[in-house]
């Protein structure tokens, strides 16, 4: 049997401890070990963005991070974007603007877009496209994703 390693990190503000194999990716740990299946696997090689999570303030494709590398780090997944039952304005905007269809890319887009709005509350269209360039969607047409991010930015500004 393969050996496992104990890892401790903070996920969505909670301390989590888990055992993983040294070769398991953070994505596999989130999905298969911790049951956080909101983070999706599209390509498993860093090219689709479905597995995007925040790790120590940066967005990373969790399929390219080893589970053991998350030792001591702070991670936010899609499950941590809403506050309890209150959706983040991005989530509301995505569903109201029809920025999702099958929805399998959506968690990655929302986590990435949140990271954008956290550091740049008023991105223009070009900045949004640039920031989300690594997130692929096969269904929606993208146009509505841009509108959703703009709408969420406006909502967040109003709330200030």
């Amino acid at each position, binding site marked *: *049997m*393969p050996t496992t390693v104990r890892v401790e990190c903070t996920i969505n503000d909670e301390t989590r401890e888990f055992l993983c*194999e040294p*070769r*398991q990716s953070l994505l596999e740990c989130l*999905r*298969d070990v911790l*049951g*956080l*299946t*909101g*983070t*999706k*696997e*599209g*390509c*498993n*090689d*860093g*090219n*689709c963005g*479905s597995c995007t999570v925040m790790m120590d303030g940066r967005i990373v494709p969790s399929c390219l991070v080893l589970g053991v590398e998350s030792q001591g780090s702070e991670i936010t*997944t*899609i*499950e941590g*974007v*809403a506050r309890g039952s209150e*959706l983040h304005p*991005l*989530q*509301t905007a*995505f*569903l*109201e603007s*029809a920025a*999702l*269809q*099958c*929805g*399998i*890319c*959506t968690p990655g887009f*929302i986590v990435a877009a949140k990271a954008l709005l956290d550091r740049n509350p008023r991105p223009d269209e070009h900045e*949004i*496209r*640039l920031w*989300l*360039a*690594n*997130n*692929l*969607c*096969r*269904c*929606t*047409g*993208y*146009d*509505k*994703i841009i509108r959703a991010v703009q709408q969420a930015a406006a909502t967040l500004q109003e709330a200030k």
Partner: protein
Amino acid sequence: MPNYNWPPQGQRRLMGKRLSRLDGIEKASGYAKYASDLNPPNLLHGALLTAPHAHCRVTSIDVSEAKAMQGVTSVRVIAPAGTEIQWRGAEVAAVSATSETIALDALKKIKVQYEVLPHLVKEEDLKKAGPRAKAAGEQLTGDPDQGFKEADVVVEGYYGIPVITHCCLEPHGQVVEWKSDAVNMFPSTQNVTGIGGDLAKALELPATQVRVQMNHIGGGFGSKFVSDRWGIEAAHMSKESGGRPVKLFLDRETELTIAGVRPSCFGKVKLGAKKDGTITTWESDTWATGGHGGGGSPPIPYVFTNIPNQRKAHSAVSINAGGVRAWRAPNHQQACFMTDCALEDLAAKLNMDPLDVFAKNADLTPRPEVYRNQLRQAAELMDWKKKWHPRGQSGSGTLKRGLGVAIHTWQGGGHDSKAICRINPDGTVEVELGSQDLGTGTRTAIAIVAAETLGLPLNAIRVKIGDNQYPPSGASGGSTTIGGVSASTRKASVNSLEKLFAAVAPSLGAQADQLEAVDGRIQVKGQASKNLTWKAACNKLGATSIAEMGENERRNPGSLISAGVGGVQMAEVEVDTETGIVRMIKSVAVQDCGTVVNLKTAESQVYGGCIMSIAAALLEERVMDEQTGRVLNPDMEFYKLSGIGDIGEIVVKMNMEKEYDDRGVIGLGEPAAIGLNAAIGNAVANAIGVRVSNAPFTPDRVLAALEGRTA
């Protein structure tokens, strides 16, 4: 018979409005469960060993070492010694184990020897295909020889559109458990009602023994209808482990290698026309492949079906590569490309605006007025008249802009569908049907139809789909879902409502046929003060729910739905003649789909169709290696999909004018994904002054065309 007709357009509260989807919160919060998210207790992980050669024979296979590994629960030989394998990636063996890593390690312990056989994996050059190209025989209409003789102008062009894949972001696969004589299957499927019977047959079980459930699916696009080898093997491996659930999803490489492709199409098209652009004669010599089984035959000439003189020859080429599966609008993208690129070349030769050539020849289509109207609308949205210039006359700079147009059609229609509308004594309403929501908004559309019919708000309807224990509903393919489920739901809701009317009529002192359901009340027509709230009315049912069925029969659809839509798509591109890079500036899509159920999700379908076409036109191509017979780009780094920066502006217009609305509901998934590919090809030609014959229009091909080379 009750009146099932849709309410008149002006009187609809919900249908045709822009409504948010019911499953949006689940999806946006990460809590929506796709089949690939399921990790039930005691789960085993399955993996496939696939063939490393494009054509080979298995001479020996030894699984003993894999079987002996700790944690391995099953090793199954799919291709025993002697099996001839026809494409790389074909399934050779399957393994299940207590973890994914053990399963993958076990695959490496399986020793297989192969006799390598000669292969053919490329079809662009028909001469090299030899006997593997099967000619379908010439088809003749009118007198093409005479037609060309009398034509004022003749153009001849060569066009090619390659094999591409579906590349659903959620790969194919399922979780399945086979306990004693019952199977529970949780697949990623477009066919909730049908896939159980398919699996049952393979497992030699009665269909009643296979239960299928699916909440959400991460894309299908025509590739996910059957239980597949991986589903069947996973079921067997579950049984062998005493009924533990087995999860087997394809990795991206296998997904892109064997889980389905759209056929290619290559060939010559020759058009004869009058000076004014009217086409009189068509001649084409085309070939295609969709894998080992040969290739699809695109319906050409496309849309302009009534060209009086035609000669057509088509060959299907069998190659050693993973097989075809329906890809959004099967054969239509290819047909549109071959036809509409030729039309643009004709316009260029005549020094005419292609818009005029398309409009003039609309008489050769089955719906001339519709296409002319859509061409006019699209041209306005594109500002065509202002922007268009004759081919190649796009100024002296190195950045060249161009415009292109294409038109398309799709039949659609509604699949067989049965729905139950249940009105419960507490006022709750459930609609049940064995359908599925591919992300297109089917769930929401069902709720809209029921709520519209029952005079209730959208959130009063609980939609239950994704289970083959619900009444049967067709597979979601060919844009037939919305027709099927909207008709069955409407009829079920009307039928149940009539029962409710009958139950409450006495207490309102009226006849059942004098009642109507409006704004959450049951009231007497013309005497709105005589009413009961919906809840009070339902309370009158005592202890028994109403549960009436509604049915759509594919062959006898009635007036609620129809078939056959048209669309016009236009592209504006900018080509950098130094780098060969094509950049999308703007796309316009004008589309009819009869009665619109939910404008928001209908538009989304069209936006989505547009990006699929943009990706197909600029990026997507399955590249085969002649030497090794492998797919060279079975990953998302080199099998490119368009990203958010690649698509430019997209403008969508749905035709909802009365004459369109009167036709009834028609599906929309396929048509939206057809025309833009050809429109982009035409825009590139318009920009740079030469035709880039082969899609995708990658920098190397654009530069080669500019230099007069072939690439």
